[in-house]
Structure formats: structure tokens, C-alpha cells
């Protein structure tokens, strides 16, 4: 069955787009959601993920060409039977339910119900809806966030169909008014002459790498970064962790790391300093009344920051389990695009590489990021209550808070970091059941 790729509408005032680069070539196999091309518009540049699994059978518009929004630019041949045609058809909307309009710069362009926590299982999905979900690889968390237009908010076949259609033009978030941070597409031919082999080796960046590069550039050019650093005594946590390590793994099936403790402390601190959990839009600070904690993971194809949603509502065990889950999925490339979206604060652990101190870059559009260094035993001066000093050997780690000085000043930033330290050094182990 033939599927069309069209030039998407990247914003309200956008009427045309330019093909920057065909990532996939004619005849190449494509997986669903895999990047198929890069486009550039007046407002935003974007990678376009494939709406279907199959083979790129025909490219209709070449690189560097500009076409109107809605123009068919390529075809994909899928192996789907004609009876699946129904999921691609334009059907009249059910009475009373209009799909929401595509907005520029909105975090997503699909009718998600943002407030529904992913673990909510109260919704009814008909046998048909479940079958479609299974076929299209939509897991429960995704299904749970599709708005229902049927009776009593039921997710109907049409709702799922609409979601699938709109997902094909889903784009990564891009805030309005940002400077273009797209890396220029290098010309292999030209560069080979400038950097000939065998003295030089030319490798084009993977799309994921490129994405990361662009994100980092964008972040640095957007937020004035300030770093505050503190050291944390993690001895109590180290000891406690060791004591329950075996039992914990036996009970849950995964290894307990330091990360859940750190996440727990971060959440506690964020509750005290909500401005750290915000986003700036123009001159308006958007405070978020939920915490979606991003955990940086070194995945096989690069750095990725999957998000644990509504981490503030979780108990220790759920938190640990969710963090483990996203990490596992990140490393096994099983993350969905939604898994890396809508984070409110991020944590990055370079201590696993043995590094003591780092200065991380903020994960836009968040306000700050916490970096964690290696846990090392050091000789420390200990003061007891009576004021007597002694030497002790303690497990210590350096924490770095990098924050956006547009939103957060040094006082808040410092106090926030101190709060994390306090949570960690006086950890309430009763929380760990």
C-alpha cells in the first residue's frame, strides 16, 4: 500500500518549506518514526519521522527545493493489506468532536490530555481500539493520553485513527523566537578536497548526534548558565544501600542505584523552590505543578534524557522502578518519542565515568540541571555537637547545579543546591519501606 509523505505545516504563518536533506534514499527501508528527511522553514527546522514502515519508493522533491505546505514530497511502499487502508482514510469527524488545531511551538500537536497520569487505568478501551493499539505499537501509556470523543469520554476508533494520522506530522518541541541552531549540512565533495584521505577521515553525524549538537548550541545560546558546586556526604546512603541491596534486587528484579535517592532529594528540594521547576516564555515564568524528572542516560546511539512523569507523586519504590524502566528502555532503544518530552528538571550522572566535577548544560526549556560526580571516599573533618573536630573517612560526591540566570539568581540557586544536600545527608530511610 502506498503512503504519502507531505510537507508539513510547521506553524500558523508558514506556507512553504525547503527540503534540506533526504536522510533516507530511494529504495531504502524505513522503520516507523525513523527520520526520513530534514526540512527548513522560516521559523523552525525539523526532522520528519516516517509515518509508516516500508520502503521509500519515490522522492518527488529534491534537496534544496522549496514547496508549498501539503505538497506530496515522497511515497513509501508498505506491506500493509488494503483492509488497513481504513486507518489512513480521511473520515468525517464524529459529531461534536473537532481535532485540536496545530499550534506553533506547542509541545505536541496531537490531542493529548496532558493532565492524565500515565498510570491511570480507569479508562475503557473497546476490543477494536485495543487491537488497533496493538497493531500500531501504542502501549498503554500512550493510549491513556489520547483524548476520547465518544460517550463519557470514551476513546473511539476515530480518536485512535486521528491520533495515528497526526502523529505522522509530529515534530519535536521548538520554542518560538529562538535563533536557528541548525547545523549547516556539510558538503562532502567540497570537504574531501579540503581534508583528503588518508590524513583525514570524514564521517557525517548521525541524526541523533546532530540533534544533540543543535540542542546544546541552542541551550547555551538561550540560557546564561551559572554553576554552583557543593560536596555531599553520602555515607549514610551508601551504607543503607549496601544493607538492603540484595533484598531489594530479590524483591524487585533490578539493582538499586544511588539515583533514586538523589531523585528523591531533588524532588524534595524542587517542592521547596518551585521556581527551579519552571520554564520561561518571553517574560512569563510558567510554574509547573508537577515534576517530570529527566534522567540522562548514555544510550547506544548517544545521550538521551528520558522522563519519569509525575515523579513527585511517586513513593520511593515506584520512583526507583520507573527510573530503572526508562533507563532500560533507553539503553535498548525502546523509548517512544513521548518518553523524552515534557520534562521539568533533569539530572545527569557523570560520576559513573569516575569524574569528580562537571558543568552540565541545561536541558531546554527547563530552568536548571543537576550534575552528580563520582562517589569517592575522602578524609573529611568532622565536627561533633560539642565543637570537637576529628578526621573521618566518608563517602563524598560533588553536586553541580547549572541554572538559567534569567530565571534563577545565585541566592535561589545556592539555596536549592543546599536543600538537595540536606535531603541527602539527612535522608529519611523510612521512605524506603
Amino acid at each position, binding site marked *: 500500500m502506498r503512503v504519502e509523505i507531505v510537507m508539513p505545516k510547521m506553524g500558523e504563518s508558514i506556507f512553504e518549506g525547503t527540503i534540506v536533506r533526504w536522510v533516507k534514499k530511494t529504495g531504502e527501508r524505513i522503520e516507523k518514526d525513523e527520520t526520513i528527511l530534514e526540512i527548513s522553514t522560516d521559523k523552525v527546522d525539523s526532522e520528519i519521522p516516517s509515518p509508516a514502515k516500508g520502503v521509500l519508493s519515490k522522492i518527488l522533491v529534491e534537496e534544496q527545493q522549496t514547496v508549498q505546505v501539503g505538497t506530496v514530497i515522497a511515497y513509501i511502499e508498505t506491506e500493509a493489506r488494503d483492509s488497513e487502508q481504513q486507518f489512513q482514510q480521511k473520515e468525517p469527524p*464524529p459529531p461534536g468532536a473537532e481535532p485540536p488545531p496545530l499550534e506553533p511551538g506547542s509541545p505536541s500537536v496531537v490531542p493529548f490530555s496532558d493532565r492524565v497520569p500515565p498510570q491511570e487505568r480507569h479508562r475503557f478501551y*473497546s*476490543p*477494536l*481500539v485495543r*487491537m488497533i493499539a496493538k497493531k500500531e505499537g501504542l502501549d498503554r501509556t500512550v493510549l491513556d493520553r489520547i483524548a476520547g470523543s465518544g*460517550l463519557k469520554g470514551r476513546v473511539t*476508533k476515530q480518536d485512535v485513527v486521528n491520533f495515528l494520522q497526526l502523529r505522522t506530522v509530529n515534530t519535536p518541541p521548538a520554542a518560538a523566537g529562538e535563533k536557528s541552531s541548525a547545523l549547516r549540512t556539510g558538503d562532502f565533495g567540497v570537504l574531501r578536497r579540503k581534508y583528503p584521505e588518508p590524513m583525514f577521515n570524514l564521517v557525517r553525524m548521525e541524526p541523533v548526534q546532530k540533534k544533540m549538537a543543535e540542542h546544546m548550541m541552542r541551550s547555551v545560546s538561550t540560557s546564561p548558565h551559572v554553576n554552583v558546586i557543593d560536596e555531599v556526604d553520602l555515607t549514610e546512603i551508601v551504607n543503607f544501600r549496601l544493607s538492603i541491596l540484595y533484598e531489594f534486587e530479590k524483591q524487585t528484579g533490578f539493582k538499586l542505584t544511588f539515583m533514586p535517592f538523589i531523585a528523591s532529594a531533588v524532588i524534595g528540594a524542587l517542592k521547596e523552590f518551585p521556581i527551579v521547576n519552571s520554564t520561561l516564555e518571553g517574560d512569563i515564568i510558567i510554574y509547573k505543578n508537577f515534576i517530570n524528572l529527566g534522567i540522562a542516560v548514555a544510550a547506544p546511539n548517544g545521550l538521551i534524557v528520558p522522563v519519569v512523569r509525575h515523579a513527585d507523586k511517586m513513593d520511593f519504590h515506584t520512583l526507583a522502578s520507573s527510573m530503572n524502566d526508562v533507563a532500560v528502555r533507553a539503553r535498548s532503544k525502546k523509548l517512544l518519542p513521548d518518553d523524552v518530552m515534557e520534562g521539568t528538571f533533569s539530572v545527569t550522572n557523570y560520576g559513573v565515568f569516575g569524574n569528580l566535577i562537571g558543568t552540565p548544560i541545561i536541558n531546554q526549556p527547563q530552568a536548571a540541571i543537576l550534575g552528580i560526580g563520582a562517589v569517592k571516599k575522602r578524609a573529611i573533618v568532622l565536627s561533633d555537637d560539642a565543637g570537637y573536630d576529628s578526621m573521618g573517612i566518608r563517602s563524598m560526591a560533588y553536586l553541580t547545579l547549572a541554572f538559567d540566570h534569567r530565571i534563577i539568581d545565585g541566592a535561589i540557586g545556592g539555596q536549592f543546591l543546599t536543600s538537595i544536600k540536606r535531603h541527602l545527608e539527612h535522608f529519611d530511610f523510612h521512605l524506603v519501606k
Partner: protein
Amino acid sequence: MRGAIHTREAGEVHVLGLSKEDLVRAYRTMLLSRRMDEKQLIILKQGKSFFHIGGSGHEAAQIAAAAALRPEVDWVLPYYRDMAFVLHYGMTPEEIFLSAMHRQNDPTNGARQMPGHYGKKPLRIIAQSSPTGTQFLQAVGVALAVKKEKTDEVVYVSSGEGATSEGEFFEAVNWASRESLPLIFFIEDNKLAISVPVTSQTAGGSIYEVVKGFKGLERFHCDGTDIVDTYTAMQKAVQRGREHHGPSLIHASVVRLLPHSSSDDHRKYRTKEEIERDLERDPIPRLTRFLIDHGTLHEDEINEMKEQVKRDVDAAAEWAETQALPDSSTVMNHVYGDAHAYPQKKFTEPVHTGNKIVMIDAINHALNEEMGNNPKMVTFGEDIADGKGGVFTATKGLLTKYGSERTFNSQLAEASIVGAAIGLSLKGWTPVVEIQFGDYIWPAFMQIRNELAMMRYRSNGIWSCPLVIRVPVGGYIHGGPYHSQSIEGFMAHIPGIRLAFPSNAADAKGLLKSAIRGDDPVIFMEHKALYRQDYASSPEPDANYLLPFGVAARRREGNNITVITYGAMVQQSLDAARTLEGKGMSVEVIDLRTLNPLDEETIYQSVRKTNKVAVIHEDTMTGGFGSEIVSLITAHCFEYLDAPVQRIAALDTPIPYSPPLENAVLPGKQKILAVLEQLARY
């Protein structure tokens, strides 16, 4: 022995055409039958059989009757006690044991009926079923066929005296007497119907007295324990029949020496004296004495005969026990006839003659064409003959064209119509009968449910009775509770009968012709409100158009909702679909056309496409055929359902006369629209 005319030659006796050989043979059969009773009870007690119903005490009467008839020529419908009859008529102990021990090659019923349901097609013994009294009207049908074929065959039907209380007995005697049929009613009166004495059964204590009033019926009374007496009566009755003088009833007085069956203990309700009295009339000692007295047989010859019989019976039982049991893989065989007998492969696109006709005329033309095709097709029912031509004019012109031998009025008795049709069909005719209103089909339900539907299966395919029962059904005509009923709910539940319910003239014509040519009994439902309806009219298909059963029609294509329906509700569904189209809803309408066989594949295909289904029928909701369709959809299309399957049907009430009431009960456009809209919103 009364009535014996004998010449005295040394040791020889001639009795009314019964030679010495005949008598000896008769005697041997009596011994054999008696020994068979004993042996069958033995094997039952050994767990090799599960039921026995004996004829001890009836032997003389039955053998006399059999001796007066011609096997392979005359048609006999013996009842469960007639073992001596069938043994004398040509069945063997081996065959009877095959049946008793439920072996696969049982020639009577393929082990599908209990023992005692004797039958053998080459001998023209039509195996009966267990319900007493259903055989009479079928015998009438067979006799009708004989009469039309103008041979000198006679038809014999027997029963006990108790079964003569059944209404169908009187219907049969009435019909046979009125039309002078070559039919002999042989009533073996042993004075007990299980435990009920004849004085509590029959007015005046004797069926012989009761039938006195039937003009055209000759009645005989005889001593059933006296072989000569009974034979005399039978000969007269048979001669009457052969010479086309009409029916006879022979009332033979016999004794029941055993309990009713192996499940009965008659000591519970009979005194010792009573049983002793009956033993005194035992026909075997009686004939023994006669044969010895007249020098026909010596005592040691008789003893030797008894011993030989014993040996033969034992050997037969032993042999039967070695035979194979039926294979469970055959259990679905013979519910219906050969599928290929259905004109499925001969389905053609109709060539329309161009004239638009209404459904009643389409039916009339179909009948006309098929009567012309098949000289053995007959049509009958109440009021169907010209000048009236049927209360809806369905059969007008048929009598005029094909004559009264083939088109005639039946008596006002539905059981008669169906029972006689079965008999005619058994003898190779094709009856296409009419029940005037579906509301009145119920007296025929015994024949339909227990005989028509089961004939092929219970005889393991040996006997079948393909025929068509046409019946107007449905309401919307201010007909009240007894001219508006839908009947398909009851009929669809019976395996063995095909059901058609066309929604338009072309379908009616094609389906009726297929039904008439088919190999199975069909109940052909005609919605009376559609008979002359313009929207149900069609250009007439040609005489070769046969619409196969089991092929539904998609009347309207759609994507959002599937409606599964039939009969008068097809048009109502289409009307609703048109209205809903204006609201942006796309409704697909499937017209089932036949309920058995059911076109499941078309239903499932549509459901998989639209994912929302409503089943609509006019019949009442609870237990209606719609529940079957819903169950099938849920089982086969579960993953494709985006909403619960809906049913629209009449309220669970009789159909009232006054329009405000009738319209509230029967499904209508408002109800349909409301449900479909709700379904779309779900």
C-alpha cells in the same frame, strides 16, 4: 376359530386362502417374535441394549395383517409393538438386533432411534418415530400419493387403542373417509395405554364404536388373538382398498402380556387376576392347539421348531454383537440433504423480463412455473383452490391450469396439511403447501418439529421428506395478536429445516423456486405487509432464476454502522439509513434473505469494516433470532467491535390491534433512528 372354512384332507387345512405352509410359517413367526421379546429383555438386562418394547400377545393379529399385504408393493407404517408384523413382512432377527444393540449398520435408523422403530425401505416399511399418533396423517399422505398414481397399492398404518385419542387420528380418519383413500387403520386394542385403561381413554370404551359416524369408512372388529379371524377382516379391508372403495378401520382385540416397555412394571397398576386372564388369551398356545388338533403339526415338530427358533435368535444376537458401533464422526451426517442438491452452483444473475411485479405475484408465478416443471409437484392448503385462489391470491390460477389432482383445498387442520405433505413427500411427490397464517401453524408444530425436521436424521438418511411450507407472517396490518405473528424464532432453533424470509419480489421468486427444487424441508416465510408493497416490488426475474439459500444481500453500502436484518425490516432499515446519511452517518444494510442456512461470512465482513452493529427484526426481543446473530458476532468479531452489539425488536408482548398500541410494540423508524444514533455516538 370363527370364519374358518376348511376342507378335510389328510392333515391339510385350507383357511380362506391360508395354506398349510402359510399357517406353519405364521406359527413360526409367532414363536420367533415371542422368543425375540424374551431375548431382547435378556440382552437389555445384560446391558447390551437400553430399551425394549415388546409385542407379546399381539402376534396373531400382526401376522394376519402382514400375511394379507404384499411386501415391496404395499406401504406400511407399523408402530413400535409391530415386531411380529415386520418379521413376517420380511425383516430379520439380525436386523432387529442391530437396532437393539445400536450398531452402525442398523438398516432401520442407523442406531439413531431407540429400538422398536421398525423400517426397511426395499420392503416399503416406513420407520415411525416415537410420538404416538403422528403416523396417521403421514399414512394419509402416502395413500393420497397412491391414489394419484392410480395403482392398486394399499397403505397400512397401525397403533394401539390409546393413540386414537390423538387429534391427528381423527383428522386422518376424516380425510381418508372423505376422499376414499386406500388406507387401512389397524388398531391393536390391548385395553391399556401404558397404565391407562381404555375405559378412561375412549368414549364408550371402543374406538370401533366411535368411528361409526365416519361416512366412507368401513369398520371391522375381530379377535386379534385369532389369526384366522383377523386375517378374514384384513382381506376384506385390503380388497376394499385395492378396488378403490375407500378406507377401513380394523379394531383387533389383543392382549398385552408384557408391561408397556422395559421401563414399565405393570404389576403396579394391574391385578394378578387381570394378568392371568390375559394369559388365557395368549395367541401362541391357541394356535398351537389348533395346529395339533388339525394334524398340521406334531408336538415334537413344534418343540423342534421352538428349539430351532431359540438357536436362530441366539445366533442372530451373537452376530449382531460383533458388528461395529457407529462412529462419532458421523454425528452431523444427514441433518440436511446433500448440499449440492441445492441450486447453489446454478445461481445465475436474473434476466429481468422488465415487468415490475409485486411479491405476491412473484410467488404466484414461481408456483406456476414449478408446477409446470415438475408433474409430481402438488399444492394444497386452506382456501387455495380457484375461484378464491388463496386468501392472499398466492395460488390463483393453479387449479384451473393444473387440475384438482394437483391443486386442492385441504381440510381446516394444519397438522393435516403438514402430515399429509410428509407422507406425499416420502412417496416421492413434491408438496408445496400453504399454512394460511403463521399464527395458526402451531397445530402443525408437532409434525414440523418431530417429523419433518428429523425424518432424514433419525433414519440415517434412508428416508427424507423435502417439501415447502409457505406461510404468511408479520404485522403492521392492524391484524391483532393472531394475524401478525413472527415465527422464525421457534423455527430457527430446529435443526433440519431450512428457512427463507425474502424482503422483495425478485428474492421471493428466486428463493421459492430454489426451495421447491431443494433437498430439504423449507419453511418459506412471506411477509403479508410486503405482498403488494410497491417498495418490495421488482422487475420479474426469468423462469431460470434460482436464488441459492445462504447468500445474504448488501442492500446499502456504508462505513460507520452495520445493520443486519430481514423481512419487512429491510425497508425500514434502508429508510433510517437514508435519514442518517443527512446527519453524516454511513449505514450499511445487510438483508439476510435466509436464516437457515445463514450467511455468516457476509455478516462478519461487514462488522469488521464498520465495527458497530445493530441487529433488527420484527419478532419479539427475548429469544428472537437476533440473539443468535449477536452471539455469533461477539464470538467471531470480538476484536473488531468498537461498541456493544445492539438489537432492535418488538416488545415482549402479543401484537395488539389498535394502531397506537401496535406501533408501540413493533419496531418502527423512530426506534431504529434512536438506537442507531446512540450507536454512532458511543
